[in-house]
């Protein structure tokens, strides 16, 4: 897709005025990752109550796509329960951004936030459910993530 289609008003707006930017004082989930190829960095903080996302913030450095993607994702998951978050797919993220046909280098920018969110969520669940019968199922789900 062309730059004019990528850098629409809404992407630039989320890049320059990111919603939910910042850190939570005592997050239940804190997950950080970076893209070694381009150095994009992202950290997400979530608070969880009764298996629901009740608060979420992110901080990061990176291109307009990666930062807008993270900010929009925080809005998307607010109030959602675990099952709904688990089901979020790559396509959901790209739909949400309105970005399709990104090249292989740039698609990683768009999907870094989903990677951070899911790895954070699964680490949290594994910790919660360790030594229970569900642990193996979660492990299996987590291993098939990427």
């Amino acid at each position: 897709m062309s730059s004019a289609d990528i850098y629409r008003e809404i992407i630039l707006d989320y890049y320059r005025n990111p919603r939910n930017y910042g850190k939570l004082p005592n997050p239940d989930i804190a997950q950080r990752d970076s893209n070694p190829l381009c150095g994009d960095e992202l950290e997400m903080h979530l608070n969880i109550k009764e298996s629901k996302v009740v608060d979420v913030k992110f901080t990061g450095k990176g291109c307009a796509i990666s930062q807008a993607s993270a900010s929009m994702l925080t809005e998307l998951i607010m109030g959602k329960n675990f099952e709904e978050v688990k089901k979020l797919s790559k396509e959901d993220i790209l739909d949400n951004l309105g970005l399709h046909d990104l090249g292989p280098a740039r698609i990683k920018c768009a999907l870094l936030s989903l990677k951070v969110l899911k790895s954070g969520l699964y680490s949290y669940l594994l910790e919660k459910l360790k030594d229970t019968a569900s642990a193996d199922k979660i492990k299996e789900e987590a291993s098939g993530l990427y």
Partner: protein
Amino acid sequence: MIHIENIRKDFPILKRKVHKDKALIYFDNAATTQKPIQVIDAISNYYLNYNSNIHRAVHELAEEATIAYESTRDKIVKFINAKSREEIIFVRGTTEAINLVAYAWGRQNVNKDDIIVTTEYEHHSNIVPWQLLTKEKGAKLEYIGVDDNGELLLDQLDKYLETGRVKLVAFSQMSNVLGTITDSEEIIRRCKKKGVRVLVDAAQSVPHLKVDLQKLDCDFFAFSAHKMLGPTGVGVLWARKELLECMVPFNGGGDMIREVHKYETSWNDLPYKFEAGTPNIADVIGFAAAIDYLERIGMDKVREHEMEITKYALDKISQIKGIKLYGPMNVAKRGGVISFNLGDIHPHDLATIIDEDGVAIRSGHHCAQVLMERLDVSATSRASFYIYNTKDEVDVFIKSLYRAKELFRL
């Protein structure tokens, strides 16, 4: 003056279009350069007509291949003004050359509490091997800082040298991000006074500047073929013969031995002691064609052309409102490399936009994250030039930067 139109005819890739109908403008030469037809032909000629292993066999093909491979070594001796062919070791590239020194010299000579000094503008390949070595030995790694003009703070070198614990100073002769040309002779002079060994990372300098090792007087010197019109997978470590003689082998295997017995082996003569296994014969042969090409133009002319185009580009780019340039503004002190940021456009977004106009630049940390921290940026955009780049191409690049500004409503 170099005849740029004639030069461009030798580079088939420059005829191709990108993004359907855009002429390719290749400004990523600090990452790797394009290859002239002479280099491509030399490689294919080897595979088509005399492909063979070297050194051992006595048949005609092997003889031809050995002669071609070894003649590259002789050309390099002349090109960098080394003393002898025994000091020229073929490796995969600058990275392997530096790792070879860290392993084969460093592990014997660096001990607990010793210091290795490098600089804040090094490529990761001249940082990580020293981190590995100093951690293993309980030694210390120290950095010469960079001032706001992108030049080294050499007073800091003196401070380290005064401790009497410095074993090696390793620095880049030209920064791959800032383009800064290091005052190498001054650093080496100060190190020699204290009997400290010096390694020069010449990956960015040998392709662009005339180098004279007899004048430079360093101890180790490393560079890569692919940044100077040659193929990937070939580089050179030059080191003083007396050092190479005392160093242990880096890799064990065929070709690096004199005699192998069940429990003992004696080493081959220099330089073969450090060239275990079948080397990258085809690409070493291709490297010779690259050196021939550069020598035909003349390194003085290469430098002259790059200064001219860099000055032209710096003049134009500095007029763009919101541009932030890194590195020395005086082209006598910098190579053909321009790192910059434009407003709040992230370099990856900028590179995506101008790529649509056919302009290939680099964006990111350029394997120099220590420098990015010093500059307090996460990334920069980088345009880097070579012998086939023109002022017309710079004009397209500048126009494209204005388009990026528009897209980002700046």
